[in-house]
């Protein structure tokens, strides 16, 4: 049997050429992207972070056509920029060229959250133990991604760091399996917590500070076709010096918060409301505060052990 060719096995110059010319086809969860870019930083990070993904045939249809192009032509010679093109049209303001990879990840999120309305899409991390899904909705700065990255390396399967895809047909949560975005202090915290984790290059001085992406472990990618049922909704909050605490939350309030954090709740209409209520009704809901990752991991172990 021939071993499948993966992006990580392509030579970097070949991958860069694909990105510059025909476009690189990248499948993440249920979506296929055709990516184009002349930016070398993007080629290096894609190879590092999506290295275990298969090289797809050029005839594979793409859901999204995305380019991280150069900015204005004269900018190639002075403070080079990058900008996002979706279906050939510019979206968003240009950014410094060094931010090209971060812009790619943000743009991929935007493509999905703005167009994939076969899902109710909630701004939340989602992981699983067995077939039990754990949803972590939280605003920026709450420690969601740090917690998500740590759980990914503590026996939980990563489905997504940013976008929870709730299937509108049956309510199951679909894996997206994209790298976890870590910012500022959490970069060092996770490097120390998970020394075997694979990271991309740090993008400095973005609007969110320093950003780095952590690759999805290969064994999680192998389960990308395995959706789960939501079992817990946990609202994490990192508080320096706080004791680890898991407090039950009313389900009705969880529905309201998830609806507020959803990108397309209004678009889904009454079916979205019913789907969200069904999802939450099957879950235990909690507010979770923590300051120590090791204690947080123990707390989630206890949670998982009671899943039945």
């Amino acid at each position: 049997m021939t071993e499948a060719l993966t992006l990580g096995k392509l030579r970097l110059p070949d991958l860069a050429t694909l990105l510059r010319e025909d476009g690189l086809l990248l499948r993440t969860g249920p979506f296929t992207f055709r990516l184009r870019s002349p930016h070398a930083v993007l080629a290096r990070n894609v190879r590092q972070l999506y290295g275990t993904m298969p090289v797809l045939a050029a005839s594979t249809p793409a859901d999204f056509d995305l380019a991280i192009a150069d900015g204005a032509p004269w900018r190639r010679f002075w403070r080079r920029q990058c900008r996002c093109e979706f279906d050939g049209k510019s979206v968003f303001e240009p950014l410094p060229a060094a931010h090209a990879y971060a812009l790619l990840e943000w743009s991929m999120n935007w493509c999905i959250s703005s167009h994939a309305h076969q899902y109710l899409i909630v701004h939340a991390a989602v992981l699983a133990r067995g077939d039990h899904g754990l949803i972590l909705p939280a605003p920026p700065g709450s420690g969601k991604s740090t917690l998500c990255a740590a759980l990914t390396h503590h026996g939980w399967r990563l489905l997504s760091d940013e976008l929870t895809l709730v299937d509108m047909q049956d309510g199951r949560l679909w894996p997206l399996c994209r790298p976890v975005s870590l910012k500022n202090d959490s970069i060092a915290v996770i490097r120390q917590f998970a020394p075997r984790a694979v990271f991309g290059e740090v993008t400095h001085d973005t609007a969110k500070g320093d950003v780095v992406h952590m690759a999805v472990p290969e064994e999680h990618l192998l389960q990308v076709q395995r959706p789960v049922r939501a079992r817990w909704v946990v609202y994490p909050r990192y508080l320096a010096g706080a004791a680890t605490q898991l407090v039950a939350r009313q389900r009705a309030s969880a529905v309201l918060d998830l609806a507020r954090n959803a990108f397309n709740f209004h678009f889904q209409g009454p079916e979205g409301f019913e789907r969200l209520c069904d999802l939450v009704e099957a879950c235990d809901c909690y507010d979770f505060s923590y300051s120590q990752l090791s204690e947080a991991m123990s707390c989630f172990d206890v949670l998982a052990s009671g899943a039945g």
Partner: protein
Amino acid sequence: MSQQVHYALSGPLRWRNLDGQWLVHCCASGATMVADPVDAALLEWLGDGPASAADLALRLEVASGAQMPPDSQQGIDERLQAWLQHGWVDVMDD
């Protein structure tokens, strides 16, 4: 004058009870909220047809069998104004 304004639901409602709390969703505007017993009663009566704050205050008094405080109509009007802002109800007069 605002007491004379008649309000109507902007669309059908969906109700779900989770752990004893009523969640209500407006199909027209997409607005969703946790309804307390007064919200629930007022929305139910608005489902019977357009009503003013005065009409609703009277129905509330009859249904509860209690003497309502003098500012009850104002309180109901404030709820209706907030619902108008969030797309739960439309104004029928004027």
